């Protein structure tokens, strides 16, 4: 049982960033904006976290607060690119997929450009000394199996525990959520009853940027301790897979991200066992993508469908 608890524990480390980014995707797509740019926004978040924490360490000495500053900086950097995305796709009505591709290109280019300027041509940031440590939660972490698996983890994991039900509540139990979803399902109808489509789509995209940035920052502050071109490498696309696999629902997304995180955790975990030699690691890498395809292809027709208006700019004149 101990081994399984350890597996769940390390799965959570990999999953949390995916959960954040995919949750962000939920808000954006529920409001009717496709967000292929999650990868770029995560990259921006990872960069922001690495740089802010680095300056906190060099200027203020290594303090325990520096990872928190990094986390906030990551959110902020994600927001910057989300704002660009929202401006192009909502205000200028540009194609959402293409803008997403642009965000991915720009985020990687801009962050690496800045890293090279700040660190004199080096392709990665300095290793951080102060990153998040695991916080066992008093009492809860003493529960035999569950405590070891779920309550002996990084602070970011606990944030995810809170954000998932909170997002679900926001989306499905509040007027705000209803409006956001209505804008994604039928913007014309929403507009008719007086909901500001532009405003809600901006909010959706900005939340997605903030959460994707948080996800990127999480990777820097719990896994890699620095930022380079390979810090994110594809996590944003796995988040999109988790978003679809979780059917645009926060709890579903949590489950899917947990599952995909496990695929990553297993890669390290399986090396403990003899039989793992016979499984090429590439197949484990592939797993999230293959499963998503199978789910999408297996469910013909309407059962797996995102918000009806996702992908289309809203044009009041075509109402």
């Amino acid at each position, binding site marked *: 049982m101990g081994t399984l608890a350890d597996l769940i524990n390390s799965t959570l480390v990999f999953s949390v960033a995916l959960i954040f980014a995919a949750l962000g995707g939920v808000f954006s797509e529920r409001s009717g904006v496709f967000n292929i740019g999650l990868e770029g926004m995560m990259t921006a978040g990872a960069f922001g976290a690495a740089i802010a924490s680095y300056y906190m360490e060099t200027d203020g000495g290594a303090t325990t607060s520096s990872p928190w500053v990094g986390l906030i900086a990551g959110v902020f950097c994600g927001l910057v690119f989300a704002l660009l995305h929202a401006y192009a796709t909502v205000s200028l009505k540009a*194609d959402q997929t293409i803008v997403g591709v642009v965000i991915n290109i720009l985020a990687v280019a801009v962050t690496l450009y800045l890293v090279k300027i700040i660190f004199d041509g080096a392709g990665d940031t300095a290793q951080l000394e102060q990153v998040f440590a695991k916080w066992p939660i008093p009492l809860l972490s003493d529960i035999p199996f569950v405590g070891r698996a779920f309550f002996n983890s990084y602070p970011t994991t606990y944030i995810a525990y809170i954000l998932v039900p909170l997002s679900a509540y926001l989306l499905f139990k509040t007027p705000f959520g209803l409006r956001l979803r209505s804008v994604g399902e039928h913007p014309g109808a929403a507009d008719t009853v007086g909901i500001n489509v532009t405003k809600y789509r901006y909010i959706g995209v900005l939340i997605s940027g903030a959460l994707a940035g948080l996800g990127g920052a999480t990777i820097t502050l719990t896994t890699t301790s620095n930022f380079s071109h390979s810090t994110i490498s594809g996590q944003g696309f796995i988040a999109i897979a988790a978003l679809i696999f979780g059917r645009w629902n926060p709890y579903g997304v949590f489950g899917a991200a947990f599952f995909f995180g496990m695929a990553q955790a297993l890669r390290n975990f399986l090396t403990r066992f003899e039989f793992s030699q016979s499984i090429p690691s590439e197949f484990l890498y592939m797993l999230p993508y293959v499963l998503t395809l199978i789910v*999408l292809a297996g469910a013909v027709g309407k059962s797996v469908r995102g918000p009806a208006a996702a992908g289309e700019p809203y044009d009041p004149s075509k109402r």
Partner: protein
Amino acid sequence: MNRAADIFNKPSTYIPFIAILLGLLCGGIVMWIGGYDPFAAYGALWNTVFGTKYDFGETIVAITPILFTGLAVGFAFRAGIFNIGADGQYIIGMTAATFIGLKVHLPAFIHAPLALIVGMLCGALWGALVGWLKAYRGVNEVISAIMLNWIALYLSNYMLRDFLVKKGEQKTPNIDETASLSIGWLKNFMNGARMDWGIWIGLLCVLIFYVLLWRTKQGYELRAVGHNADAAKAAGINIKASFIKTMMISGAFAGLGGVFSVLGVFHYQVVQAASAGYGFDGIAVALLGGNHPVGILLGAFLFGGLTYGSSGMNFEADVPTEIVRIVIGSIIFFVASHGLIRTVIQPFFKKRKSRERKGAGMNGNVG
């Protein structure tokens, strides 16, 4: 579906040029903020591309793959499909060509063409998978293609690691000399730049792109589906077959790009952690080139030149090569957000704009 065709069939030809200028301007500003001299940097870029015969040859080497992926993306766009999966098709084509180049031993006159055709077909099949998923399983092509890109990357790495690469190494041995598609005399003429058949076949593909779409009945049907799938269906066109056909041809173009990278340029393949991103550059090229084969060719020249030139910027002006990615990203941003350009220049071009509106109506027809 129409949205893809809509963006790309804008009658305005001035938008790409303004986008290029704005993109270069953005790059300049970013360099200036970073403390570099933009003029020196762009000068270095120009010198790198047009400086020597060798450099010009290597620029063409940089142009070739994005010409192929650009054609792939553009062709699919014309038929109403956003092929974001050119990346995966490129990788699959490349890996198949490497496999044939290493594992099969034949005389030259058959070996190289075989590797080329197998690579192209594998790219085509990988593309067709996207078309099939869209036609028969209703899967959005953007999502399936993104998933297939990553599957292609890991499948390729698996093939390389388990069959083609020696233990402990990260790259395959060189392919057999008989499978090479390099052009020796041209290479010597260009002072050792890695010249191959790629650019020539690429130019041939530009022609094929045009003839297929505008000079055949099949192409007419594909374009009709691209304009309005429902109308095309009502007119009796088999749109499911059309999706698959489109993606096969698109995948074949992208696959050829991968083929020439191995058979023509490198002669070996490397295990990669992430793809080189030629498929995404292809989207940029197609968008800039307005989906027209000649536009794509010009777009590929621009982005290929920028990419190769960035090494010179780094060498001479010490500017990080990422600056060119920023320029390319900005250019696509401005082309995609053409609304921005229009608002900015509207006051200056009021007359022209009204004339173009009329043009837009005419352009709506297929044919």
